[in-house]
Every structure is written in C-alpha cells, then in structure tokens.
C-alpha cells in the first residue's frame, strides 16, 4: 500500500522550537511570586527519626515555612503511573508518605523548606537537625527476605512486595528436567541503573483564582498525576489541572509521581503561591527511580540435538525503599520469559519483588525486559557453547513458531519478523565467517561476535486498560488542529500522530498542527507515555478521529458538488474524484463554508476515545563485534547493529533515532553503568554524572539500525512497539561476543575494565 506521509522521514513538529531555544520546559516557565522548596534528606539508610529541630531554619530571612512529617500524617499514596483499576485488589501499593520519619533509604524525604529563593531554601535545609535510631539495612533482596530481617514497611512480611508463579506445559517442571539429556543452570545479576534523562525532575504547583490546584510538571503521565492528586487531597477532579510542558526526556523516570504530591501540599501551605521543586542531578539519580537490580536463577533442559524441553527462571528484583510500580516489572518478566522461545514440555517462572534500603526502583525503558533478556540470552550462549552448537542455530531451533498462539493467551503472533531479523543480522556482521575466524585466537587482543534476540509487548493489555483519546478541529482554511492526551517527552509521538492524522484525512503533513503542552483541562484522556504504546494505541485514536473528520468533509463536499460522497476522496488537501483523482476543489472551500454558511454552518470536528484489546509483539536482534584487551580488561565494541521487527516503520528518521538511543543506553548497561552503594553505610557513592558513567560520545561506537517491516493488522498503519525495544538486546549481544572472543562467560554487569580484569585473571588468561 502506498502512503503519502506515513513511512516518510518527516521533520519533527517540535524541532524548530528546540534548535532555536524557544521550546519551553518546566523550569523555563516563570511565574510572579514563585517560591522555591528544598528537601531535607536522611543521611542514614534505615531507621527512625527520633528528633527534628527546624528552629534555626525557620528563623532565617526568606524562609516561609518548614514542613515535617508531623504536618503531613495520613497523606499516603501510590506513585506508579499505571492506569487505575476498578478492582481494588489490582491497584497500586499505597506506601508513600509525603514526608517520613521512618527512614527507608539514604536520601529519604524528612522535611521540606519553602523559601523566597533557591539559595535560601538550600541553606535552610542545611540548618535542620535530625537525630536517628538506626536499623540494619539491606542492599540485596535475598538478604531482606531472610527470617528476622527488619520489616522496611511494617507488616510486609519478609519485605516481599510481590510474588508470582507462572507454570506452563504438559508435565510438571521437575519431570520435564528428568527427561532432558542435559540440564544447564546459571545465575545472572543485573545492576540497578538510572535513567539520567537530561532534564532532572522538576515541578511547580499553585492554586488559581478559582480554587483550582494547577501542577506544571515534567511528567510522562499527566492524566494519572491528576487522578492521584485528586484522590490524595480529596479534591473534585475538576479542581486539579496538570500541565505538561516540553519534556527533556523521561525513559520511565517520570512515569511516577515523585514531586507532584509534595508540591501541592507546599502550595497549600503557602496560600496558593506557586512553589517549585527542582531537583539537583545528585537528588535525581539517588532519590527518584532506578531500573530494578535483579538476580536470576535460570535452568534449561535440552535434548541432545539442542531442542529445549524445559525452562525455569526464578527472579529476585529489588524494589528499593518504596513499591512504586510494585510487582508489575518482575511480573512482566514472567510473561516475556515464555514468549520468544518455547519449551516442548514445560516452562515455569517464579518472581519476587523485595523491599531493600536502596533507591526506589520503578519503570525504566523496557520495564524489566533488559534484565530477563540478559539472563536468557547469556544462558543460551552458555548452552550453545557446551553443546558445541552455533548460538544462532540453537536459537532458531527453539524460537516460538509463527502463528502460534501466545502461551499465556495474551497476545497475538500474527506479524512475526524475528527469523528475518536474525538472517539480516548474521549477514550484516559476517556471522559464519567471523564465528570461524575468531574461534582460535591467542595473544592479548581478541575479537568475537555475538548476538541476542528479544520480544517485546506493545502496550499493557490485557493486564491493564489500553485507552486513548484524540480530538481534531478543522479550521476555516482546512488546517488541522490535532489534540491528544498522549505525552510527547522527546520520543517523537507528536510527529508520528500528526503523520497518522495527515495520512488518514488526506492532507499534507504540514497542514497538521499539534500543541506541544498537554493540559488535562483540555487534552483528551490518555494514560500517557509508557509501554511503547503511543504510536499504536494513541495512533488508533488519532486514526479514528481523522476518519471521522474525513467523512464529514466528504459529506459536506458531496452536497456542495452535487455528488455522492462515496465517489469522492481527499488527496493532498483537495477533494478529488475517486476513480480518476481529478481535482475538484481544495478542502478549504468546504471547511470555510462549514464555519460561515448561514443555513448549515457546523465546523468540522471530532472527539473520540479508543480502547484497544490487543497487544502484538515486536521483535529484534542485536549483532555485535568486540575487541577485548585482556591486559586492561577493556572491551571495545567495534561494530553493532540492531535489526527490529516493529511492524511498519512510520518515520524512518525518528525510528532510527529511537534505535540509536536505546542501543546507547544498553551499551552503558553492558559496559559502564551501575549504581553503587557503600556496603558499610548504604550511602550512594556515584550519584553524579562524573562518577555514574553514562556513555559519552567518545565511548559510543557507530550505531547501526535496520528494520524488517512486517504489517500488524491491529495497528493504525501496521506499526508495533519501537520506543523501548532497542534497549533490550545490545547488552547480552556484547556479553556473548566477549564469550566468543575469550571463552569467559560473564554473569554480571557491567563489564567494565575492573570487573573484566578480575574475570580474565580468574580464568587464567592473564
């Protein structure tokens, strides 16, 4: 099918504003009378506050008020950006106080200062004196689960936030292992890492002249912020307005309420004056959200020929100090575990999410799947090596089959390009030749190639609701104003949604405009930016709205032209005769009349909501070539390519951008990133951009992106998840390339020079 704008590399709608510096982010919006808040954070990892002295801070010039846990008793809320569930049992865990005297991590929020300027707020925070009673702290989920461990949240037994089991198959798992010719077991660890989006968390709140609480915030989930704030403060929803300005990246860090509830409390304390909470980078890394650090126990039974007959995975994820997304992330690993590969007889998954005294873990790009994929894909290379099989052949033999129903019955497997992704990846990297070439190496510099596969869901159905709204107003001259509740956070959703609107109506992309801010008072309802859902779910809503205005334009056009609307079409902004595409009139003739024709005026608008009860899988492969220096432990990625089946690619340029960014994030995961905690004190050791090592431009190799374009029938234009998937498979591909190069089977990340030097020494290579 030929498209006019879908599939083209259209320029981003927000690009000019961003290169000229005109795009307004939260901290760029100023208000008269703005107040600034600072947070006093605990200096211990676990314990109880026994005394707070705020007198010196309160006596300072420019300090309006100091708020302590005593002032906020009873305000407890869930923070996660999940759609609401009508079933109380399915709701998010409400374990978060506005301020706390029960300390659960180093940096926990104990008191807040409201001051006339930022410097006074920061100085006043330093004058607050707090005394503690300290408890033992836990930096490992399996330690926190032990009998006798102190409950981090009173009443939560063994500190277990969530626990689930999934069992599939025709026989029980132990019997299935009994029938295997070989059984392989491994333990893999993936560290907690942080999003490090360039814009830190920032929020301000005020109360307007109509008693409406207005929250301007750097969030991925404006409508969810509104719901949680309204419920927390028992306000009518109509009295809460959330505005999302331009956002400097989120990656899941902002799929959570970190600052908004406190900002609202503080403006209430300040008579409705605007109060801003603008975190430092140090606070943002240590005290917002992280990716769950995890330990995976994985076991696979295979036949002699390499066919998998039994698979078992047990995962322990650290939730850190608060539940945030609860067990959803480890839970999602369970459903993913059975999706990419199948086992002939049985599969089983058991997952635990456990409170520890670390930074709170929440959503981060690809939501648990990078962790489980690292375990599965590393394990598969270990198996292939033991069986002397080609790792790609081992995978191909065990992949889930095209057209097969998803084992958990949740998703369809209609569009399936994974095998073609593997073929393309092998061809790109020169797989067969290099697997052979690098198999016998000596010396201190060695090369290897590796690959890793993944699957990834598009949205959250059926675990949670998938719904999205869109509104279209066609102006007098035929210009199209698109309004959505989907949240543009840098990923490019506004651009894609404009392409979908333009394609569906039949107007040039340039004729469609979209407001970069989301405002819950006027933007249609949508649950927000997460789960790689917006092009798919919000895209369907936009398509539905666009079809409606298209019909209205044609109907009006038919009447005006004395033709049946079924004989007409809209192409390039003109009404044309469908059968020969001859141009009749520009749509502006019709839309102008829709505003001003005395007898019949009725501007052309649509306002729709669309629910989706489907969830197609997207797939992909990373192939990587590395050069390893055994003496220094340094791993150099010399070539890397991601090949994705994300259905039809709606915009090649922005799609490649998503892939490159995801690859870079995964290379950081593979090679340099890890949140470090002092084992003696539980304090953060690297919560700044110098010590916490995200990839710099000099660390990053040339990144290659390619696609296998399938067409997903349930999507607006054949598309499936793309935002998160690129960050799933690069880390295990690099790990497997290192195995190929050196024979060393790495079991934990990051593979930084220190860790690799130790590993090579242990293996007797140096």
């Amino acid at each position, binding site marked *: 099918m030929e498209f006019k704008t879908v599939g083209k590399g259209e320029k*981003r709608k927000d690009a000019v504003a961003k*290169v000229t510096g*005109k795009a307004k982010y939260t901290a760029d919006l100023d208000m008269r009378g703005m107040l600034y808040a600072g947070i006093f954070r605990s200096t211990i990892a676990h314990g109880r506050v026994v005394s707070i002295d705020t007198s010196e801070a309160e006596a300072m010039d420019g300090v309006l008020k100091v708020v302590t846990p005593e002032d906020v008793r009873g305000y407890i809320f869930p923070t996660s950006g999940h759609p609401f569930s009508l079933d109380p049992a399915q709701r998010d865990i409400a374990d978060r106080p506005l301020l706390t005297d029960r300390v659960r991590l180093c940096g926990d929020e104990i008191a807040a200062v409201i001051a006339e300027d930022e410097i006074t707020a920061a100085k006043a925070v330093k004058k607050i004196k707090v005394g503690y009673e300290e408890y033992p702290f836990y930096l490992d989920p399996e330690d926190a689960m032990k009998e006798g461990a102190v409950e981090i949240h009173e009443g939560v037994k063994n500190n277990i936030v969530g626990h689930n089991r999934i069992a599939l198959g025709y026989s029980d798992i132990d019997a299935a292992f009994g029938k295997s010719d070989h059984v392989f077991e491994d333990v893999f660890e993936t560290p907690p890492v942080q999003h490090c*989006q*360039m814009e830190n968390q920032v929020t301000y709140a005020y109360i307007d002249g109509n008693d409406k609480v207005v929250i301007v915030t750097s969030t991925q989930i404006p409508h969810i912020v509104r719901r949680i704030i309204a419920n927390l403060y028992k306000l009518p929803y109509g009295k809460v307005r959330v505005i999302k300005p331009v956002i*400097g990246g989120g990656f899941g860090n902002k799929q959570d309420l970190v600052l908004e509830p406190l900002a609202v409390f503080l403006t209430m304390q300040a008579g409705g004056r605007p109060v801003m909470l603008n975190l430092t980078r140090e606070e943002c890394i240590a005290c917002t959200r992280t990716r769950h650090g995890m330990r995976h126990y994985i076991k696979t039974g295979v036949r002699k020929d390499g066919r998998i007959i039994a698979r078992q995975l047990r995962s322990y994820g650290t939730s850190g100090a608060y539940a945030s997304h609860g067990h959803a992330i480890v839970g999602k690993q369970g459903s993913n575990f059975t999706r990419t590969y199948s086992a002939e007889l049985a599969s089983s998954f058991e997952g635990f999410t456990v409170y520890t005294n670390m930074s709170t873990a929440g959503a981060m790009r690809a939501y648990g799947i990078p962790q489980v994929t690292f375990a599965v894909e590393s394990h598969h290379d270990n198996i292939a090596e033991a069986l002397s099989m080609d790792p790609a052949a081992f995978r191909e033999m065990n992949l889930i089959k095209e057209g097969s129903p998803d084992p958990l019955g949740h998703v369809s497997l209609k569009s399936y390009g994974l095998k073609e992704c593997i073929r393309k990846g092998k061809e790109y990297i020169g797989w067969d030749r290099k697997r052979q070439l690098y198999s016998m190496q000596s010396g201190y510099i060695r090369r290897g190639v590796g690959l890793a596969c993944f699957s990834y869901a598009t949205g959250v159905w059926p675990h949670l609701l998938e719904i999205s709204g869109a509104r279209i107003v066609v102006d007098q001259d035929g210009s199209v104003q698109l309004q959505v509740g989907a949240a543009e956070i840098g990923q*490019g959703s506004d651009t894609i949604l404009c392409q979908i609107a333009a394609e569906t109506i039949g107007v040039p992309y340039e004729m469609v405009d979209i407001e970069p801010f989301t405002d819950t008072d006027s933007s249609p309802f949508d649950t927000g930016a997460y789960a790689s859902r917006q092009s798919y779910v919000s895209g369907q809503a936009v398509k539905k709205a666009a079809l409606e205005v298209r019909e209205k334009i044609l109907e009006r056009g038919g009447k005006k032209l004395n033709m049946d609307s079924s004989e007409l079409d809209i192409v390039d902004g003109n009404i044309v005769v469908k059968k020969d595409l001859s141009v009749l009139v520009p749509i502006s003739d019709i839309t102008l009349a829709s505003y001003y024709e005395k007898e019949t005026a009725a501007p052309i608008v649509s306002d729709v909501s669309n629910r989706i009860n489907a969830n197609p899988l997207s797939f992909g492969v990373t192939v990587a070539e590395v050069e390893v220096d055994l003496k220094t432990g340094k791993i150099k990625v010399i070539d890397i390519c991601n090949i994705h089946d994300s259905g039809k690619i709606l915009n090649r340029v922005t799609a490649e*951008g998503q892939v490159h960014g995801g690859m870079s994030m995964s290379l950081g995961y593979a090679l340099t990133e890890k949140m470090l905690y002092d084992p003696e004190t539980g304090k953060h050791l690297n919560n700044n951009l110098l010590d916490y090592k995200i990839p710099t*431009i000099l660390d990053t190799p040339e*990144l290659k992106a390619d696609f296998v374009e399938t067409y997903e029938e349930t999507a607006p234009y054949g598309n499936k998840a793309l935002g998160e998937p690129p960050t799933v498979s690069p880390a295990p591909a690099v790990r497997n390339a290192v195995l190929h190069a050196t024979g060393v089977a790495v079991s934990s990340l990051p593979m930084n020079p220190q860790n690799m030097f130790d590993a090579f020494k242990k293996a007797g290579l140096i």
Partner: protein
Amino acid sequence: MKKTITLKVNGKEKTLDVDVRMSLLELLRDTFNLTSVKQGCGEGECGACTVIIDDFTVDSCVYLAVWADRRSVRTAESLSEGEKLSVMQEMFIEEGAVQCGFCTPGILMTATLMKESGKKYSRDEIRRALSGHLCRCTGYQKIIDAVGKGLEK
C-alpha cells in the same frame, strides 16, 4: 557583594550590577530570559548550558557572571535570524539529531564555533570536539551526522 560589569549578550551591549557569586547560567536565564541555556547538572558535567564566549565555549553553570565582564556571550537564541535558521540548526532538523532537545542548544553552540573556525574535522575529531556534551536520547549518532554535514555545507 555586587560588581558592575559590561558585556555583550547576543550582540547587544549591557551594563549591570551582578552578585559576584552568580553563575553566568543564572545571569543568562534569570536576567536575560535566555532559557535555551539549560541546567542539567550545575557542575560542568553535561554541557547542556554551553555558551560561546568570544571565541571559546564554556559550561555557563561553572563560569561566574563577573568573568564575562568586557566579553561577548552568545546563546542558541542568536543562531537564527528571524525565520532563517543557521546551517547547523537546519542540519540538526534534517538529520533527526533532535529528540528531547534538552542538550540541543548547548551542542549547537559547540557546533557553531566549529563551523566558524573554518577547520576541517574528521569524524573522530567531531567526536572529540563534542565530548563535553552528554545526550541520553540519540546515542550521538545523528548528532555526529548533522555536525558533519553542517561542516561540509
């Protein structure tokens, strides 16, 4: 303590009293409303606040406002003339180098100075020249492409 300084900001000369502890970033954002200058870390790690001073770039968060006395400061707001974008701005859009956009104005300042130098840069030299900037969205790939194309034009 305050000090009187005279500086040029985006071509316009201005004399004003500034707190000697104030950073150039604060001066540009709060006094001149030049919000293209972004604060990503406040300690010279990320490069989002990069501006051009005379003929070099600085992280304006760790550069005192008083040091800009008798100097000329340029921010991303100065790069376009009316609707006409600079070559580098055009290339950033065309190549898809812009995602969340928070690092973009700072990188554009470094790229602009590279362009003005008239020097030739290999791909590795472009990487080295941009190594003071962090970006979490793009993996730098399309930024390097855009700067490379902008230098050729």
